[in-house]
């Protein structure tokens, strides 16, 4: 079986790639290699799978190999799609135009651990959980903690500019990358940092490029090595969950907690009524709860015992200050630990007549300010309800709001609505409906001064077309940078509306 190559790749190009890599086992144009590097966990039009396949997959081991492959692609105007874990939620690693998919999983070594200057240097293919297993015995950890902690890879976290559950205390991916080695779209290998040497944290020399290269969604280059922060391993974790009889009181309590000034506060999570109703479907912590439990606030703290223990008493007071009821030690410990695992189970889905059916999960990740959370919640739920009513294949899995600002729990919030989509029932009509639903949700975000994506990236239909609107006056600057670094539009082309940076609309 075969699906034809989409881009300018032919047998001659494959031979050139084999010559560069020198190992036929790492240059893969066969169907199963392409098929299995197409989708990511985001909802996917299964019936159009063939349209999103890369043409050939490369498994590099070194920056030099990546550099030569990208150089070749740039010369021949062949698209390149970088892929680390392929666990992103916004199609950033999905090939829209065929081309060469650069899969960095083999680059998963720990090159150096420096306990004096407090950095660890790794390849982009390493997973954070596996990294921390190694770091534990040195009393340090790399504090990047997304819901995908057991599965996502450092390279993808850097590409997406990931968000961490404990970012309110430790910062997110961007803050925890000290410097990185990048292969530019034109093939050069460069070091990007704050300035200075590999392990410098803050500088004002030249331009500060690190921000640009953490969160570009693979459109400005490929990370081939990263030097990361080593945070001291916390002595103690404290988590507490509080139940509320109405959303508003829970929301107000969230504000009390995030404005508390407690330095060890790592994250606060607000569960809305729809989320609690959804959790009652199959979560043992919520099934037996009385009907008066309508909304929940979860809090977590990390640090030394000397700091966390007294702070925990303040948290208990604040959590109860407006009538919140503590859900108990078991749920607080168990549910906090399950934050990485509860999301993805397809059987959370319910058809319109209540049957448990396998649904794919869409995770919205807008960034919004505190003041607008209640209103955005109402408007988003109304949108999803409308689409469910009309199309039947969508399901509202409720909303979370999480502390978003790095080191600033009082700042903004990552606001998530989870939408189940019955993938097996997808067809062109339903898919278009889904894209409209996605876009409507994003338009509400923009209306309330938010960002359409705190961390996943605006790399999919429904989001990508709104990037210029969100960027506003800075969109011109974005386009100039893209064109300057990627003159031939080969690096993850078609993402984030960046085709607009090119005179011919970016399509070769």
């Amino acid at each position, binding site marked *: 079986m075969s699906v034809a190559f989409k881009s300018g790749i032919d047998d001659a190009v494959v031979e050139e790639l084999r010559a560069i890599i020198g190992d036929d086992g790492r240059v893969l144009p066969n169907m199963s290699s392409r098929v299995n590097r197409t989708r990511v966990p985001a909802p996917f039009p299964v019936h159009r799978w063939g349209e999103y396949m890369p043409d050939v997959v490369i498994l590099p081991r070194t920056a030099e190999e990546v550099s030569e492959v990208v150089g070749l692609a740039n010369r021949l105007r062949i698209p390149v799609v970088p892929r680390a874990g392929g666990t992103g939620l916004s199609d950033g690693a999905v090939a829209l135009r065929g081309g060469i998919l650069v899969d960095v999983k083999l680059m998963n070594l720990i090159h150096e651990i420096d306990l004096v200057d407090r950095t660890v240097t790794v390849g982009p293919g390493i997973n954070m959980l596996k990294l921390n297993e190694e770091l534990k015995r040195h009393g340090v950890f790399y504090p990047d903690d997304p819901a995908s902690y057991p599965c996502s890879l450092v390279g993808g976290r850097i590409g997406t500019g990931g968000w961490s559950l404990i970012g309110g205390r430790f910062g997110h991916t961007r803050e925890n990358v000290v410097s990185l080695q990048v292969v530019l779209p034109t093939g050069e290998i460069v070091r990007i940092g704050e300035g200075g040497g590999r392990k410098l944290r803050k500088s004002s020399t030249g331009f500060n490029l690190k921000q640009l290269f953490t969160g570009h969604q693979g459109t400005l280059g490929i990370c081939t090595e990263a030097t990361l922060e080593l945070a001291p391993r916390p002595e*103690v*974790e404290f988590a507490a969950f509080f139940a509320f009889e109405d959303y508003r009181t829970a929301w107000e309590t969230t504000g009390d907690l995030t404005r508390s000034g407690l330095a060890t506060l790592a994250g606060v999570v607000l569960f809305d009524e729809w989320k609690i109703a959804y959790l009652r479907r199959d979560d043992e912590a919520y099934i037996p709860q009385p009907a008066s439990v309508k909304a929940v606030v979860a809090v977590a703290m990390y640090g030394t015992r000397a700091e966390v223990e007294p702070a925990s008493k303040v948290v208990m007071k604040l959590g109860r200050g407006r009538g919140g009821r503590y859900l108990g*030690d078991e749920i607080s410990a168990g549910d906090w630990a399950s934050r990485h695992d509860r999301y993805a189970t397809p059987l959370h889905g319910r058809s319109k007549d209540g049957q448990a059916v396998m649904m794919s999960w869409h995770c919205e990740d807008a960034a919004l300010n505190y003041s607008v959370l209640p209103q955005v919640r109402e408007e988003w739920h109304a949108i999803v309800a409308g689409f469910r009513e009309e199309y039947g294949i969508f399901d509202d899995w409720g909303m979370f709001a999480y502390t978003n600002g790095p080191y600033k729990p009082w700042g903004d919030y990552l606001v998530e609505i989870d939408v189940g989509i019955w993938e097996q029932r997808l067809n062109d009509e339903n898919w278009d409906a889904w894209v409209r639903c996605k876009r409507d949700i994003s338009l509400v975000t923009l209306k309330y001064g938010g960002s359409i994506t705190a961390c996943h990236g605006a790399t999919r239909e429904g989001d990508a077309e709104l990037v210029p609107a969100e960027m506003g006056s800075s969109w011109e600057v974005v386009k100039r940078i893209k064109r300057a670094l990627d003159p031939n539009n080969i690096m993850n082309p078609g993402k984030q509306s960046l085709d607009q940076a090119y005179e011919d609309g970016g399509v070769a």
Partner: protein
Amino acid sequence: MSVFRLGDQVPPDPKRITDAVVMRFDHVYEVDPALMELTGQQDVPAWDTKRIVDSRWDHLDWMHDHFADEVLLAGEGSETMPEEDAMPSEERSGVREGPSDPGMPGVEEPAVDRPDVRE
């Protein structure tokens, strides 16, 4: 010691908990089978249910250790419902020893790619 007998593997009959949830084994919730008509249920013998439930708690206990040496809790039970109904597996509460993996880098070859540790 557990002796495997096929007859012992059949789960007990369900009793109703809510309009969507039933219970066969103590403290283990299950979906009302009527809601699984479209998807279908599998044949899950009793030993497998036990394995999954035990593993879940073991895994949750283990997860904490990635982020801290010790879990501190308020030391209080549920304020929303009576303690014995609050969380199915009461005997699982509390801290346990974290994982003890000595850790190993993603080495490709023995010794050569060991990370340098500067201390």
